[in-house]
C-alpha cells in the first residue's frame, strides 16, 4: 500500500479507529483540535460515537462510563484540559478501567501558549491525580508511530485494565509525514467479564467502584494495583537506541526531541565524537533496565527535553550515580536547535565531564 501524507493528530485518530475505538468524548483545544475534528467525521463512518462534551471534566467522566461498560474509548486534550482531567484519571486508575487519553503538550504553566512542549512529563509519568497509581505512558516520535501506537495503547489498557496516556508535543499533532495505513484491520478485543453490561450478560453483579471506606479494603486494592504496576514495569519497558555502539556520551530524549538528537548525534559522529541516543518509548514504565545497563560504558549522559529537566530524574535513578547526568532544555514552547544540542555534546566531549 502506498503512503499518504498525514498530520499527527489525524494519524492518532485513524490509529484509534483502526484499534477498534468507537467512542470519543472530548473538548477541542489547540494544538490537538485536528484530532477532535478528524474523529467527529470519522467515528460516525464506522458506526461509532463522537461527542463534544461541555468540558474536560465531563469528557473524562464520560470516558469512565463507557470504559465501565467495556467499550474501547478515548479522549484527548492538551495541557490545561489534561489538568482538568486529573481527578477522573485517578478514578479510572482506582477503578481499573481501560481507557486511552492523548495529551498533545503545549507551553505552560497556566494558560501558557499553543507552542510545543514536554513539560507535562511529571504529570503523566508520576501521576498528576491523587492517590497511589500509575498510567502507562507512550511517547511516539514519528507520525507513523503516532498511528501505530494507538493499537498498542488500547491493547495495553485492556491487558492491564489501566488508563494509558499517549503523549506528544503539540507540533507533532500538526506535523505531516508519510504514513502507511497497512492492510486489513483485524481487532481482537479481549472479553471483559467485569464490565457492567447488565445482568442479562453476566452472572452476578458487576460493580465498578474506587470508593473503599474501610482502610483494610483500600489497602487490599492498593496492594493489587502495586502488584500490577510491578508486572507492567517488568514486562513493558520499551526504548529505542540510535548509534549507541561504542558511545561514551549518551543522549536521552523522547518524542520529537529524540529526532533532533538523532541529527545531533549524526553530526557529532561525523566529527569523531562517540555520541549515541537512547529514546524512551514508554515513559512509564521508564526503560530504567536498559539505561542502567549502559551506565558502566558511558562517560556522561545528556537528557534533552522541552522542559526544565523532568525525565532527567528518571535517568539519574536508572544510572544510580555511576555516571554524571546533565540536562539541556528549551522552555515555554521553544524547540531545541540541533546546533545547540551539538554544542552541548562538544562541551561534554572536550570538557572534564564524567569520570
Amino acid at each position, binding site marked *: 500500500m502506498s*503512503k499518504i501524507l498525514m498530520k499527527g493528530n489525524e494519524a492518532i485518530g485513524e490509529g484509534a479507529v483502526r484499534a477498534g475505538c468507537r467512542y470519543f468524548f472530548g473538548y477541542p483545544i489547540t494544538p490537538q483540535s485536528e484530532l477532535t475534528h478528524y474523529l467527529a467525521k470519522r467515528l460516525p463512518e464506522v458506526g461509532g460515537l463522537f461527542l463534544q462534551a461541555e468540558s474536560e471534566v465531563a469528557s473524562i467522566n464520560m470516558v469512565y462510563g463507557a470504559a465501565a461498560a467495556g467499550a474501547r474509548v478515548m479522549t484527548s486534550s492538551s495541557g490545561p484540559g489534561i489538568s482538568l482531567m486529573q481527578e477522573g484519571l485517578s478514578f479510572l486508575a482506582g477503578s481499573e478501567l481501560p481507557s486511552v487519553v492523548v495529551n498533545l503538550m503545549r507551553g505552560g504553566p497556566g494558560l501558557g501558549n499553543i507552542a510545543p512542549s514536554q513539560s507535562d512529563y511529571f504529570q503523566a509519568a508520576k501521576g498528576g491525580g491523587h492517590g497511589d497509581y500509575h498510567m502507562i505512558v507512550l511517547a511516539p516520535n514519528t507520525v507513523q508511530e503516532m498511528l501505530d501506537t494507538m493499537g498498542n495503547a488500547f491493547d495495553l489498557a485492556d491487558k492491564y485494565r489501566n488508563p494509558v496516556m499517549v503523549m506528544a508535543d503539540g507540533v507533532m499533532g*500538526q*506535523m505531516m509525514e508519510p504514513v502507511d495505513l497497512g492492510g486489513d484491520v483485524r481487532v481482537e478485543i479481549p472479553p471483559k467479564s467485569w464490565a457492567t453490561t447488565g445482568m442479562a450478560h453476566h452472572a452476578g453483579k458487576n460493580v465498578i467502584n474506587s470508593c473503599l471506606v474501610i482502610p483494610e479494603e483500600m489497602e487490599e486494592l492498593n496492594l493489587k494495583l502495586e502488584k500490577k504496576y510491578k508486572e507492567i514495569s517488568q514486562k513493558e519497558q520499551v526504548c529505542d537506541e540510535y548509534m549507541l555502539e561504542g558511545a561514551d556520551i549518551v543522549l536521552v530524549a523522547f518524542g520529537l526531541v529524540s529526532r533532533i538528537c538523532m541529527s545531533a548525534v549524526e553530526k557529532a559522529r561525523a566529527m569523531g565524537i562517540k555520541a549515541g541516543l537512547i529514546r524512551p518509548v514508554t515513559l512509564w514504565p521508564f526503560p530504567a533496565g536498559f539505561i542502567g545497563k549502559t551506565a558502566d560504558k558511558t562517560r556522561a549522559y545528556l537528557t534533552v527535553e522541552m522542559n526544565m529537566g523532568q525525565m532527567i530524574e528518571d535517568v539519574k535513578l536508572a544510572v544510580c550515580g555511576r555516571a554524571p547526568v546533565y540536562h539541556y532544555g528549551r522552555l515555554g514552547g521553544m524547540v531545541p536547535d540541533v546546533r545547540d544540542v551539538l554544542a552541548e555534546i562538544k562541551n561534554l566531549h572536550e570538557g572534564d565531564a564524567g569520570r
Partner: protein
Amino acid sequence: MIEAVYIAGHGGQGTLSTGQLLANACLKEGKFVAYLPFYGVEKRGGVSNCGVTISDQRISSPFVAEPTVLIAMNSISLEKYESAVVPDGLVIANSSLVENAVTRDDVRVVPIPANEEAEQMGDPMVANNIILGALLELTGVVSIQIVAESLKEVLPERHHGKIPANVRALERGAELARRHKIRENK
C-alpha cells in the same frame, strides 16, 4: 537530504498550503518528506511559517534549522530568516511585499513579484503557487506535473475548480525563474 525548504510569511498568504503541496508532490516521487508548521493564534495576519524536508533517506530531525531554500513572502520573514540559510543556499523573495534587500552575498537571491503577477493573472490567491513554480524550476526537486496532480489531493474538493488557475500560476512562476536564470548568466 535533498532540500530543506523554509517558507515564511503571514497568515492568509498560503505558506502552509504551499508547504503541504510540495511535501505531497515529493512523496509521490518516492522521497522521504516531513512538513512542520509554525503559526500564531491569529486567523489572519499572524506569523505563518513551515519547514519542508525532502530527503532520499529517513529524516532524523524534521526541523528546518538551516534551510537550503528560504521562501520569504514578506519583509519581516526575510529579515528574520535570511541569516539561517546555508552558504550557497537559495532565497526566493516575494518582491511584491519584500522591500528590504538581502544583506548576504553568499546566497543566490531570486526576486519574484508574486502578488503583482497573480493580480495580472486575475486571481490574487495564486501568488503562493507562482513562488512554488519558481522553486520547482530553480531546484528541480519535483516536476510541475506531479505538483499539479497533488493539487487534487491537497485542495478540498470544493476548490477543485481552481486547479487550472493554480497550475497556470506554477507555470508562470517557473517561467519567471527561467528568465531570471538567463539574466544571471548574462
